[in-house]
């Protein structure tokens, strides 16, 4: 691991001032915030990340889950994943989020990993994680050997000729269906980013994964008021029954009026270069009967633009069946 200076800023303003001096907030940042450390320490050991300064934000006052005035939820940046998943309000009103978090990582890692850290979780692509390999995400312009190489677990949606790395987060897939808002404070003040606008597609700049700029500190995430009577499901398919990243996953939030789908939000995990909300699938189902044929059509729509690589064509059908099953499970209540 490369040497670094470790400090603990007194408050958010001090953290932002120091981090604002960074050249980038994206891959290769010279100044990094550290909270849980489960991604960053791992990547620093691999020398994929080599920050010169670490700012420990664990003792800043971002560790609370609170009700918002409108009946939604405010989740602090450093709330641990285990505390979020096991929170009574989350389990009752946003169960898709609880299910998603508990399907990821291990109990130990969930005790460490934080809300903001999970938003910024890095890909598990083996080429990204090995500095002996070329990787456009790690070293822009160096090439992507994954496209012709080991790509069984990599993305089929949102890929480009430069990068096919999968976003590995489960939490983010659920937050996409809940239409979470991400609250950031930076050198220019505070701003709010809609969940769908936070992560970037790789395009020709896969080293840029989010809209964050130097000094931007995620302070909290808000969830809108829960939808009364919504049925929520997170289904995750993987090589092992536990402690494994998704090959395909689906998050569903659905309201039924009689047998008709009056509201539905759908997102996929394990298949996209970012947490993959599917407005196409939602459009197929909204106002339609909650029946198996419609669920399959929604899945077809969600995967219509999928682009398989040499080893991951199976993911297209896997993701379709995953979403179909999740929708059916939600409809069954």
């Amino acid at each position, binding site marked *: *691991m490369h*040497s*670094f*200076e*470790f400090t603990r800023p007194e408050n958010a303003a001090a953290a932002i001032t120091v981090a604002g001096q960074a050249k980038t907030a994206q891959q290769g940042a010279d100044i990094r915030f*550290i909270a*849980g*450390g*489960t991604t960053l*320490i*791992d990547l620093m*050991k691999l020398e994929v990340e080599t920050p010169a300064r*670490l700012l*420990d934000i*664990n003792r800043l006052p971002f560790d609370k889950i609170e009700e918002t005035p409108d009946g939604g939820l405010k989740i602090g940046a450093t709330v641990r994943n*285990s505390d979020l998943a*096991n929170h009574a309000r989350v389990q009752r009103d946003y169960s898709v989020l609880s299910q998603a978090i508990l399907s990821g*990582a*291990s*109990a*130990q*890692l969930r*005790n*460490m990993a934080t809300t903001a850290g999970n938003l910024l979780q890095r890909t598990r692509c083996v080429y990204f994680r090995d500095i002996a390999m070329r990787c456009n995400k790690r070293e822009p312009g160096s090439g992507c050997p994954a496209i012709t190489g080991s790509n069984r677990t990599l993305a089929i949606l949102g890929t480009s000729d430069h990068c096919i790395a999968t976003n590995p987060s489960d939490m983010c897939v659920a937050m996409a269906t809940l239409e979470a808002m991400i609250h950031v404070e930076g050198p220019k003040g505070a701003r709010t980013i809609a969940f769908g606008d936070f992560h970037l597609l790789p395009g020709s700049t896969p080293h840029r994964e989010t809209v964050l700029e130097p000094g931007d500190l995620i302070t909290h995430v808000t969830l809108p008021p829960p939808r009364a009577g919504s049925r929520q499901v997170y289904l995750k398919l993987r090589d092992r*029954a*536990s*402690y494994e990243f998704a090959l395909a996953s689906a998050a569903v939030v659905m309201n039924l009026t009689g047998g008709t789908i009056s509201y539905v939000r759908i997102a996929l995990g394990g298949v996209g270069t970012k947490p993959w909300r599917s407005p196409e699938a939602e459009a197929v189902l909204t106002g339609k009967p909650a029946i198996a044929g419609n669920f399959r059509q929604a899945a077809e729509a969600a995967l219509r633009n999928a682009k398989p690589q040499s080893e991951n064509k199976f993911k297209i059908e896997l993701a379709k069946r995953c979403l179909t099953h999740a929708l059916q499970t939600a409809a069954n209540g």
Partner: protein
Amino acid sequence: MLDKQQSNPQNPTRREFLSTTGTTAAATLIAAYVPVAENTSVEARTPGPIGPAIDGAVPISIRINGKDRQLRVDPRTTLLDCIREAVLLTGTKKGCDHGQCGACTVHVNGRRVVSCLSLALMHDGEEVTTIEGLGTSETMHPMQAAFLACDGYQCGYCTSGQIMSAVALLKEPCGPDDTSVKELMSGNICRCGAYANIVAAIQQVRKRA
């Protein structure tokens, strides 16, 4: 247990053998971890020469198994390396060193974490419990006794991590069935495959609680 073994030059322990035959590289490595205060029997068993304070070492205080430890650590030192190399509590094991195997599981402020993915500096002022703080060979923690009774191990390398996870699980939301236990123990890998007996040991303790 290990702490009570007496140093014997004629019959050195594996650890002493490794440390006394250490190369320059090993000495350099050890120099990264400099105990500030040597006030316990554990620190008395220092692994060979302790070098001068290295550049950039930072003083921290961590309460480990009920004892306050004043240490100076290189900022890169993980909590795992701090526990093993500075405090010389070697019951906590290094497996993958990347948060994938659970061998390094300890409790921080009462919650289980993988100590390999955390920096020692992040835990200044916090309370850590390792396997050595759970019980002794004479007065075992009920979970240690259950692992023994149920044969919850073979080679033993993952065992301290398994037991630290299992003890933490007792206080976590967990269904009564074996499936729930397996799910919450999935972060601890056992390459000998003692899983069935590990689950049996945990269930034995839960049923008696």
